[in-house]
């Protein structure tokens, strides 16, 4: 997998991943799957009482989408670090586009060390997350990884 998608190994390359619109069902299921049961994401009565107009997505659901982008680029074992700042609330109906831009890429001894700048915006161009990741990709075929 890592070698097969190594076409992004150049500073300035951009890889994007479009994400389906966020649904209320998805928020309910994510609460169960993630263990984050904060009612502000799944109970509109609770959200309104807390001063919010509606439920909104778990930040970590958004980060999971950026994680999908990373693992579409390289195997999960290649990820050295992954960080995100949640810039604004991700709402029901938002269609995110996740994006990774190569800011550093060093090749040595068949290993690529890649630094990525990450972001995600919705269909209106509203910035939702910014972040960074570091990948170490072994470009040679390996018997075990």
């Amino acid at each position, binding site marked *: *997998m890592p070698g097969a998608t190594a076409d992004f190994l150049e500073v300035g390359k951009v890889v994007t991943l479009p*994400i*389906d619109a966020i649904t209320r069902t*998805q928020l309910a*299921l*994510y609460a*169960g*799957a*993630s*263990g*984050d*049961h*904060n*009612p*502000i994401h799944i109970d509109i009565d*609770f959200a309104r*009482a*807390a001063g919010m107009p509606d439920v909104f997505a*778990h*930040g*970590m*659901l958004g*980060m*999971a*989408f950026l*994680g*999908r982008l*990373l*693992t*579409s680029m390289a*195997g*999960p*074992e290649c*990820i*050295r*670090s*992954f*960080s*995100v*700042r*949640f810039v604004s*609330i991700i709402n029901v109906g938002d269609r995110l586009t996740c994006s990774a831009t190569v800011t550093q890429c060093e090749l040595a001894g068949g290993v690529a060390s890649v630094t990525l700048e990450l972001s995600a915006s919705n269909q209106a161009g509203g910035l939702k997350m910014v972040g960074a990741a570091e990948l170490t990709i072994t470009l040679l075929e*390996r*018997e*075990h*990884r």
Partner: protein
Amino acid sequence: MLDRSFIGRAFEPFSIAVEPGRLKFFANVIGETDPVFFDRTAAEAAGYKDVMVPPTFLWCLEMTRENPLDTLDLLGIDIARILHGEQSFRYFNSAYSGDLLTYKAHIADIYDKKKGQLEFVVRETQIINQDEVPVAELRTTVIVRND
């Protein structure tokens, strides 16, 4: 204002098994289609010893501790006032379905911005596996709205 004397406070370590059914549920919800995250045969065919844990799922396992609100309870924070501000992971070794992971967490920092309107609580967590091999380090920043 939150009591800064809790900076450094450690939580009781806990251990949790990585269950294949939950990994499949998680992959389905986030729209992950790469079978190495939910199908053992596919994971083995890709060279992995078992189904792989996706990058953010280590945080989800931490939410499955006995009291996931322990930080909030300790500091007296209302869950309705919080937002997730930042999250970071450093990965040392892969985690797989079937692993037994041990989490050790502490409060790394508490600070405020905008004259106390926003307070920030930083929790740091070290994760090791059943062989005491380091798996990852998590840093979770929660924002408390005091406005």
